[in-house]
Every structure is written in C-alpha cells, then in structure tokens.
C-alpha cells in the first residue's frame, strides 16, 4: 500500500508531478479539483509519453487520465482484484463514500495486492490502508 496519497492540482506542471513522484517514490499522483476531490490520475505511463519534451510547458490536466471509478475501502480485496482484471488498470484510487465527497483516502495497486497475498489471508482495504500508515 502506498503511504497515503500524493495529489496535485490540474494546473500544476508536469514537471512538478514528475518531481513529486521521484521525491516520494510513488508510482502515481492523484489529480484533484479545488475541493480536493478526485478528478484524474497520472501514472508512470502518462509521464513516459512525455519523455524528451519540456515538462514545464504542460499541465497535469493535459496528460492525466480521467478517473471516475468508485472503489469503497470496505470492499473485500477480491472485489478490487476482479475490477483490476476487468478494466486492465492496476491503480485504484480508494474513495470513502461515507464522507460524501470524492476525497482520495488511498491508492491500491497490483503491487500492494501481491505484497498482501504474500503476508495476509483476508481483509479489506482499510487493513491495507492501516498497513500503509498515514493517509491524506
């Protein structure tokens, strides 16, 4: 589990996003609106398409992938795995629906699940979130 979530605003430069990822050793950055709600996601892949270009010329919203998937932290891990396999996307932003806003509370990746499979038998995202420590 990623330690919390790192996020950026849509107008942040792609350079800022790359630096956030590098500094924090995160594989994805959540793009949020002014209210802090999930709007999109930028992973390594989106950044790699811009290798060799001036990263300060582009904004996060120019390269982000729109994100509208709802993933409840109460879901069993198996349900998240089924979703990953179905949509072929391995970065799931966890949003707590009980809060009433789409604030990101964590990110679940295939890597987290493999670690989880190696060490635990069953549980919910909240366990993974706790394992990861702080959340935003």
């Amino acid at each position, binding site marked *: 589990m990623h330690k919390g979530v790192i996020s950026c605003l849509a107008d942040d430069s792609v*350079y800022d996003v*790359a*630096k956030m*990822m*590098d*500094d924090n*050793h995160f*594989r994805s950055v959540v793009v949020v609106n002014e209210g802090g709600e999930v709007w999109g996601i930028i992973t*390594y*892949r989106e*950044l*790699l*398409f*811009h*290798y*060799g*270009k*001036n*990263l*300060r010329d582009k904004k996060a919203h120019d390269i982000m992938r729109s994100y509208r998937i709802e993933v409840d932290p109460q879901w069993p891990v198996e349900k998240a*795995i089924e979703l*990953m*396999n179905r949509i072929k996307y*391995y970065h799931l932003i966890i949003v707590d629906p009980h809060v009433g806003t789409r604030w990101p509370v964590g990110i679940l*990746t*295939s*890597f987290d*699940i*493999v670690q989880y*499979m190696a060490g635990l038998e069953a549980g919910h995202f909240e366990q993974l979130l706790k394992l990861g420590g702080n959340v935003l």
Partner: protein
Amino acid sequence: MGLISSDMMINALGKDFGTARAKDIVTPDSIPTVTLSTPITDAVALMAKEAIEHLIVVSDKAGSRAVIGMLFASDMIAYMAKAGEQGAVS
C-alpha cells in the same frame, strides 16, 4: 525469457500459488527487451506503448540473449525530474 510483474500475478489469480511454477504465469518473451545499444528514447517509448514499468536489458552480441540488467520506469522518471530541475528539456 520472461518476466513476472505484479500485474501478471493479479491476472493469474485463481491458480494455486502453492503449487504453480513461474512458467505457469509468465508468457515466454512476453516482455519486450532492449539491448545496451538501444536509444533510451526508444526504450521509454516502448515502456509507454506497452504500459510496462520495466524492461529486460539483454546483450547485443550476435547470438547472445544474456540478461545484462533491468531498466525501470522509476529511473526514467527520476531522470526526467532532474533534467527538468536543471532547466533542460526532458
């Protein structure tokens, strides 16, 4: 030659991991490879196109496919961030 990533492990869920072998999960030659003489721009483009975060680097000697090392997307992102910091186009 192949490589098992966490994405592939998730795809293989349902297999009995207690008895499954690496060959049951990996698809031979499923991961594109590069050589030491592959331009970095080509390697990065390959990663982005194939949506993978690592490439196996193999020998570019004729007749050899010996593994030399790995190239990671995280290293490329680090390079892009540092080049951007220095004001270079990256």
